[in-house]
């Protein structure tokens, strides 16, 4: 083995449990205080994840506050179709704070009649593909997104397949650009 000068194995040390909990509490307070004026916010926490439910109105504000509070790593964004529940859709965003070793899981309801939500791309460019995916599969529009186009399905696909009213196997395969010769 050669002498690899640019690398040094670093043991990530575990901080004491009470320190982590105190940090998490402070973090929840910070995030909650910043967003409480804007909308209703509920917070629940376990060992790893802080979960927050928020209205559409205060969503971006909460995420900006979370980013300033240390949750600066973008992890995940996905949508869930609850179909007969109000609001119909729920967008779940996960961000991560490396220093505090906590995940923040934000859930925001999106009504089925008007499925729009503000985009997170100004805060995290990594939200770009995930929001395109949620648009593609659920038809949720993210206002302020720089390029809200289909990402996984062909551009001329009809419908949003992960919605619960989009049945499995009932749609013929669409061959892009196929045409019949006379």
């Amino acid at each position, binding site marked *: *083995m050669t002498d690899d000068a640019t690398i040094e194995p670093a043991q990530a040390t575990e901080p004491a449990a009470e320190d982590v909990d105190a940090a998490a509490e402070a973090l929840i307070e910070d995030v909650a205080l910043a967003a409480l004026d804007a909308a209703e916010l509920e917070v629940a926490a376990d060992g790893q994840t802080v979960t927050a439910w928020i209205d559409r109105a205060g969503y971006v504000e909460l995420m900006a506050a979370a980013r300033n509070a240390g949750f600066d790593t973008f992890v995940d964004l996905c949508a869930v179709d609850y179909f007969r529940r109000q609001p119909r859709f729920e967008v779940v965003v996960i961000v991560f704070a490396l220093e505090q070793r906590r995940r923040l899981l934000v859930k925001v309801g999106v009504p089925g009649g008007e499925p729009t939500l503000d985009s997170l791309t100004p805060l995290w460019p990594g939200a770009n593909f995930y929001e395109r995916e949620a648009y593609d*599969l659920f038809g949720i529009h993210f206002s302020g997104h720089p390029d809200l186009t289909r990402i996984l399905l062909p551009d001329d696909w009809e419908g949003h397949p992960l919605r619960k009213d989009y049945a499995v196997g009932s749609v013929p395969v669409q061959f892009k650009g196929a045409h019949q010769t006379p």
Partner: protein
Amino acid sequence: MSDTPNIVTGDFEAPTIEPPPDSGAAPGTAGKQRREVHDVWIAGTEEPRVAQSTNEGAQELLPAGQEPAAAVQRGTVVDDDYLFGYDSEQEERQIINMGPQHPSTHGVLRLQMELEGETIRRVKPIIGYLHTGMEKTAETLTWLQGPTNVTRMDYLSPFFNELAFSMAAEDLLGVDIPARGQAIRILMTELNRISSHLIWLSTQGMDIGALSLMLYGWRERELLLAFFEKTTGLRMNHNYIRPGGVAADLPDGWEDDVEEILEVIPKAMEEYDELIAANPIFLDRTQGIGVLTIEECKAYGVTGPIARASGMAVDLRKIFPYSGIEQYEFDVPVGKTGDTYDRYLVRMEEMRQSMRIVRQVLETMPAGDYRTEDRKVTPPPRKRIDESMEALIHHFKIFTSGFKVPAGDVYRAVESPRGELGMYIVSSGGPRPWRVHARAPSFNHVQALPAMMTDSLVADIIATLASVDPVLGDVDR
């Protein structure tokens, strides 16, 4: 982080590649040179169809002393041109597609690149060619059938997909896995990390011209796949880790097989290091190429070896330990510069650390059951089926209608060879999941490609892409 990272400042613009805004010129005739317009008649019609000749772009060599690419490329901050406005002062450019059928894109990734001579000015990754609707399929499968589906997502590290899915399901079920089941899971996933990194090493070597690495890497991987086949019955897509434990106990004589792996792989790795770690061509092709900063990693959600090579000390095995991995000793390698060479070093060290873990698992493998005692998720033992009608019915029910999982939602993530592989699963209390979402590490890494590739040379695209090691089954799902 109070202020904005440097990659998200500036005006946002639709990242579709547009011609430079040139006032006065008609659309499609942008640029300094007027394009020739030919009238083409289609036989049998009277309608003339207007076609434009292809603009070849700037093909001539740059003047001596002017090397814009190399100057920008050696820097540490690479701006994401993909989100930025277009500079109308620029020279004429041409757009070419790399992929989706290109041997160096590791699958069906398509990179739309805007070239200025030999320099990449803008890159747009286009995905979706391998989309098979696995998340929709997952909603039609029972919880026990789920791993069959998700194991095909990241097909180079199938055990990790199964583990993330099973851990999420077990969280909702509230079942505990016995120590032997946990240890088998760690053993298989860490061996899988080695086999996956061997594929990366092979393709990384092949893509930049070190063809012998391709042969050696696959040769050693064969040893691991043979062990996987002996244990699970399949070389890939194992469906071995399931909610409730693992599908079967380790085969007789597994210690000898693992011992052989632990003997052969370190020797082979010395060979690889001898071949390329100090090879001047390899160093020249990888050092300072495809640099990603910590800020960019955080903004794009880049995890795993790429983030660690950039100096971000993040490893879910240390931060949120799973499956009892906290009882084994191992180190997390962290790089400094975040270039392709650091990613090489980090992954090589990770393989050594994985072997350390495997060695400890081998020495401390606990006895006992390999799956949970909970009869709700575990079928009755084979012997009971012969003597008890109820046991037979129980077995039949588990494998036909499946078991019900309490309503709720959970996100569980594992440290796959590529980064954070998470599963967000919603259960409505029925025998099938209501929603399964896979947080794929390659998905994030592909969208961070413009940040790594902009203003680099065409040849370095290949080296960078190989160092990212995307699996398109994971990206498109």
